[in-house]
């Protein structure tokens, strides 16, 4: 058997993937949000749609992440959160998040982002105050973790576009779903 390659560090991962111009990325995302607002008109609907889009992205993204990063199986949810914050965010957004505020059982934590490339130049107008601009990120995390058998719930706690000092999302592990086979072994 060939020797297993060791997992790469966040910076090495970021350097090894194809990158796109940050302004193009930011402006494209801004255009998507604007178009959703024009089409759906309701801020809540837009939030749901962004989350759904993120979910679809996340289910596909997790395979690419696991293939490129060579991480081994995580022992517990704490390790999963660290991997997402250090390697996952770094690989796809180019920024690292910090994991804080673990609860007593170790099933709920917060990712804090000081710097978020999705929101450069953005200022929320007064008509869209309920908009969760970065909701696609919560969908991505939910979708990715569901593909590796973890059902989670992600909510936004702090949002710089609303005047807070950082972006904070709370990720709560609801349950680990063991893989189900569609047939019984006895038959």
């Amino acid at each position, binding site marked *: 058997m060939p020797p297993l390659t060791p997992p790469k560090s966040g910076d090495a991962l970021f350097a090894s993937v194809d990158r796109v111009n940050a*302004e193009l990325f*930011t*402006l494209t995302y*801004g*255009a998507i*949000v*604007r178009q959703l607002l024009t089409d759906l008109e309701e801020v809540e609907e837009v939030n749901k749609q962004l989350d759904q889009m993120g979910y679809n992205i996340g289910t596909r993204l997790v395979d690419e992440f696991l293939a490129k990063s060579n991480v081994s199986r995580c022992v517990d949810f704490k390790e999963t959160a660290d991997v997402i914050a250090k390697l996952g965010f770094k690989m796809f957004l180019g920024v690292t998040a910090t994991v804080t505020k673990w609860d007593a059982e170790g099933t709920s934590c917060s990712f804090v982002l000081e710097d978020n490339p999705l929101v*450069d*130049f*953005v*200022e*929320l*107008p007064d008509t*869209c105050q309920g908009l969760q601009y970065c909701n696609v990120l919560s969908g991505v995390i939910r979708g990715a973790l569901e593909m590796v058998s973890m059902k989670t719930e992600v909510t936004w706690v702090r949002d710089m576009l609303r005047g807070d000092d950082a972006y904070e999302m709370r990720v709560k592990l609801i349950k680990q779903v063991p893989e189900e086979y569609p047939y019984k072994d006895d038959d």
Partner: protein
Amino acid sequence: MIVCVAVVGHQNNPLYLQSFTEADDALKLHHIVHCSLDVIDERVNNPKRSAPTLNETFLGLLYPTENYKVYGYLTNTKVKFIMVTTDLDVKDADARNFFRKFHAAYVDAVSNPFHVPGKKIASRSFGVRVSTIVKSFGSGTTG
């Protein structure tokens, strides 16, 4: 000291107008800005023969009145920045520097996906940045 800055769109529609002095002068300053638009149009439509001025963004002193000097700057999308100052000895380099920073702030404000091109600039952080640039304008000249 800068008393007024303005951003005017390519159809001569006002996009941003801010005075940095007492309110009763504000109307007069807006009037001065309006008149200077005519000067810009004249400069743009009758370019001087020499080639460098054809793609010059910094238009320079537009016209001096008894108290004020008006400087203009034209972007390649025909958006005009106008600056009214009471300083009697403004160095060319300072004015260019001011407009360069102002242009950078304008570009960031316009990159906001919620900004509608052609409508007024509603960004609060743009206003804050402009105030900072205006405050640092005078201090560059003092030794």
